[in-house]
């Protein structure tokens, strides 16, 4: 399952749980009025667990996600690993990608920059799901490491509003099968 779907389902579960909590609270608020002192007293005890629970959830999320950051510090392969370098330049409103054909299973290093304004180099798969992105910024070269597992055509879109014809700024990466 694509990572964005996983995150989407985590969010959906949160919406259901939190939404049910707020609806329950709103309905419970109609009852009473009860004496606030014991509610307040119990509530402050519950709040301690709420605080510790959220802290624990945050630390778990950090532990699970930090190792998967998309940055060169994490993704740059060992020096012995062969890397295909692809130069990408954004310009209103087209991409220059060289070479635009890479090999499945091989590490690709996209060196991404811009000649004019900010663009966002977004790579999609055949199912129109984002598989990777990095900003194309004038005067800066960003390095995105990716490994395409499946051969095929990967559409490229600009994801940063860059002027009137922003939506027309498209291209593609061709991923050919690995030999042998």
């Amino acid at each position, binding site marked *: 399952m694509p990572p964005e779907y996983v995150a989407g389902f985590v*969010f959906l579960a*949160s919406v259901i749980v939190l939404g049910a909590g707020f609806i329950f609270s709103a309905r419970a608020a109609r009852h009473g009025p*009860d004496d606030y002192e014991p509610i307040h007293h119990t509530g402050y005890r519950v*709040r301690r667990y709420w605080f510790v629970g*959220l802290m624990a959830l*945050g630390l778990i999320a950090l532990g699970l996600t930090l190792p998967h950051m998309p940055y060169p510090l994490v993704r740059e392969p060992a020096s012995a690993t062969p890397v295909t370098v692809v130069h990408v330049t954004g310009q209103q409103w087209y991409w220059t990608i060289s070479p635009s054909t890479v090999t499945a299973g091989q590490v690709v290093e996209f060196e991404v920059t811009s000649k*004019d304004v900010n663009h966002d180099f977004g790579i999609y798969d055949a199912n129109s799901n984002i598989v990777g992105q990095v900003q194309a*910024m004038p005067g800066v070269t960003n390095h995105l490491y990716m490994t395409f597992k499946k051969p095929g055509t990967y559409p490229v879109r600009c994801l940063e509003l*860059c002027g009137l014809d922003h939506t027309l700024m498209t291209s593609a990466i061709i991923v050919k099968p690995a030999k042998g």
Partner: protein
Amino acid sequence: MTTIPITPQAPAAPQWSTHANEANRRMTAIWVVTGGVLLAGLALLGLLLRLTQSTGVLPDRWFYAILTLHGAGMVAVTLMALAATVWYIVRDELPLSHRVNVTIYCLAVTAAVLVVIATLAGHFGTGWTFLYPLPSHPGPSAAMGGWNPAWSYLYEVAVALVALAFALWGAEILRAGVVRFGNPGRMFGLDLVSGHSKPGDPNTTTPSIIAAGVMAVNGVFTVIPGAVIVILMLINNANTSFTMPALFAKELIYFTGHMLVNFDIYLGAAIAYAVLPAYAKRPWQANRVLVLAWLSTMILIIFPYFHHLYMDFAQPTGLAIVGQVASYASALPSAVVTIFGGVLLVYRSGMKWTPAPLFLFAGFAGWTIGGVGALIDSTPSVNEYFHNTLWVPGHFHTYMALGAVMFLLGGVYHATPLIAGKPLSERIGSIGARFILTGGWIVVLTFFASGAMSIPRRYAHVSIPRFEAMATIGLVGACIAAIGVLMIAGDVLRVYLPGLSPQVPSPPVPAPPLEEVPS
């Protein structure tokens, strides 16, 4: 953690003067009418944007111009309207200057006029974030349909005016707070932290004043980076051979923008602190935990802005980690103290869900669920897939439209009898709220689902998979919400416009009283 004894709200400070109160009332009425008309109009422009994504009804140059107007307008108008409402709420506690209020209003209205001209007359269409150097580089040729860079001046000056107006608001809140409490420490409740005062003691601060004070401090210093980037971009407009590092410019823009958006929601909390107790008939006092939560927010609000630059890999990775940790940490004070406190306050309180508490409670839900969506997106390994997709408008519409604006409506419904001399219609408010909440949640959940499907944000009409279908579902939600928006906006005009006449005396309608609570 010890249980803090419950006592009635701190006694009200002296009323500053009848004349000041009448001037304050009229000024607040003007704010409500201006804010109400602008917010309703901007919301309808949002509907037009979704209609365009669904059907292509607008040409692209109009789409991006209206997108810019809608985004910048919503952020700024909500901010200034919330600031004006908080001003009204704390007016009896703090000796605020009417003249400053008028000045802030003039600055805000001037900014609104400039943005309207730049976008609707000049087709300035960078999006509200006006990333350098796009304002001075609209494209290969303005004749191809982009904007003339000259229009950028108006927009950038408008941004500076909004930041200046809010800084002025902040400076006046801080000045008045120090006058009222004698020193900043007591204004922020440090006497409660040190144990020199107890919750409910006379002359202790209130949660609304603490929240307003924290936003005031941040507002005052946010104007500095805001002014720096606007000046640099104005120079770049005048002479494009003057350049600056694009990453530096982006840092300044997103720092300023991030702070201004956050002020919206936290000012909403200041309203909830003051108003919700009147309907729950229970006190919501400043205490040690609340003070510490807000003081930590004062710091934590600053650092999450790095999450806007996660996809700029040239930004040091350490700053991305700071962004993630700070984003998570900044949610804690809100979730543990304010939102939990609000739910606890109403629990089995015998609450009648009239429009004011309904909007406030809905605001807590929007703030919480929008916050979860933002936290997911503030994780770099997830942001790689959600950055610049419709997930982003998903989370900010949730905590802005269904959070901050709900708090604003709650405050307006509560205070209208005092400001306008008669209440807004409960029936229209209740029905309108249901339209807004039903339609609003369809809008935002469609944004989230679209983001999870990798649909880009800020795209005019385009033929890519799922784009039109999801925009159409969102459009249905926007139409439902628009019915509620128009109902409530119409009622606001019906009630407020006659009261803007200077002959109308200040109406002595009291807010619902607090019941006796155990001490």
